[in-house]
């Protein structure tokens, strides 16, 4: 099924295999996206990460889509202290969603998921010092 979507005056043809499947598999300009729509669309307005998601998911998918298909864990891209944790085991998250905020060199760094999926384990806590490449979460 093809849909025409207009974002900021530019039209995109979005091809969706099955609108009722979760995640929704959508193809835009030859790139494949996995999208999990919010249960209640009204809630979206109140979530800043959801609002800004579209361009970031895209830049991620440009590079990493193939590479991260089989990655079933997320590691810390830099050493620091976890100051905020946004996910728990069982959460279904999207690629590009912020998982944790790691503070390093007094700068807050939002660590975003490189893939979509359901989280099976969260291996870190708030205030924990994490090393580079330390596993933060595992996916099912």
């Amino acid at each position, binding site marked *: 099924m093809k849909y025409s979507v207009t974002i900021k005056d530019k039209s995109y043809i979005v091809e969706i295999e099955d609108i009722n499947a979760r995640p929704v598999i959508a193809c835009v300009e030859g790139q494949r996206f996995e999208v999990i729509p919010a249960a209640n669309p009204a809630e979206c307005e109140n979530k800043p990460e959801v609002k800004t998601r579209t361009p*970031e998911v895209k*830049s*991620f998918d440009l*590079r990493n889509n193939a590479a991260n298909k089989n990655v079933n864990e997320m590691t810390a891209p*830099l050493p620091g202290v976890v100051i905020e944790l946004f996910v728990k085991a069982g959460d279904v998250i999207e690629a590009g969603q912020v998982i944790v905020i790691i503070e390093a*060199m007094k*700068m807050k*760094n939002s660590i975003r998921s490189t893939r979509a999926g359901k989280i099976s384990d969260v291996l870190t806590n708030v205030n924990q010092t994490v090393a*580079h490449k330390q596993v933060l979460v595992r996916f099912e």
Partner: protein
Amino acid sequence: MNLTELLPELLKGLLNFTLGNAVMITASLVLIYLAVFKEIEPVLLLPIGFGCLLANIPLAGMTAAEGIMGVLYDAGIKTELFPLLIFIGVGAMIDFSPLLAQPRMVLLGAAGQFGIFGTLMLAIALGFPLNQAASIGVIGAIDGPTSIFVATKLAPELLAPIAVAAYSYMSLIPIIQPPLMRLLTTKKERLIQMDYAPKPISQKTLTLFPIVLTLVVGLLVPDATPLISMLMLGNLLKVSGVVDRLSKAAQNEIINVSTLFLGLAIGATMSAAAFLNWDTGKIMLLGLIAFVLDTVAGLLFGKLMCVLSGYKINPLIGAAGISAFPMAGRLAAKTANDEDPHNFILMHAMGANTAGQLGSVIAGGVLLAIVSKLV
């Protein structure tokens, strides 16, 4: 005594008020506005702005040698006490471990000092004598205390415009640097991810570093010793872990009080007579050029390292090789992160940034040594 003789005495403040005073008071209000309402470097711009306001109230006597501003200037600026006390605090806030983990970042800290020498040449071409040109060049160290330290020794008459240029451009780094970063690097370069997997730095190394560096730099560039040793003293207080109270005092009370008095005393030198001339305009322009040259040189060197390393080094970290710790390091990391939300080059950028801090102090000392021999 009749009334006609009394009137001028009562109105003497207004009668001595000049157009120049009005211009400078407007400038001071702009500085205070930027500090209060835009929160641009408020810790510095607020006292500088207020000092400037005081300096342009005629006959108040505050900037005279026995007035409070005169006393502060003689005690803290002329003697170079305030910039050195500030450096104890800066040292206690710096973490050198990203640099110690990646010693090759030192090269970027050296490249980021090109602006000093480039600006010095330009200043000479514009007709400034060598001592003044060197002081203007040190704006390219992008480090307030170093600029003030060198200018006080070489050209104290230019201290006010140099300090104002150094501090105001420092607050504009987030506006000056990112367009240059994007202009001089390709998207492919900005997307380069860098692994950060150094061996952990031991407590012993961290503690020895400030001591060894003070000795090495002190023996090689004696003129840089006051600055580097105070920076290293602050760092030693922090990393030794045994004088937590002193480390906290350096990071808070010592640096705060010194910054307040330094800002006031510098601001108080901005009287209309001393500040409103073409040289100030030229210095502001040269200061901007110094910031741009530093960033460009750092980025170009970053690109060279990128090619030599086989595209493993993200050239953006070159822009962090200036001083301006930690702003420049954060900006380089943020620019890479904006391009790709999964790219974190913060630790590398901070390594380059701390190297830039050391580089600017050493470059300032080298310049001081050469120029004081020549003039």
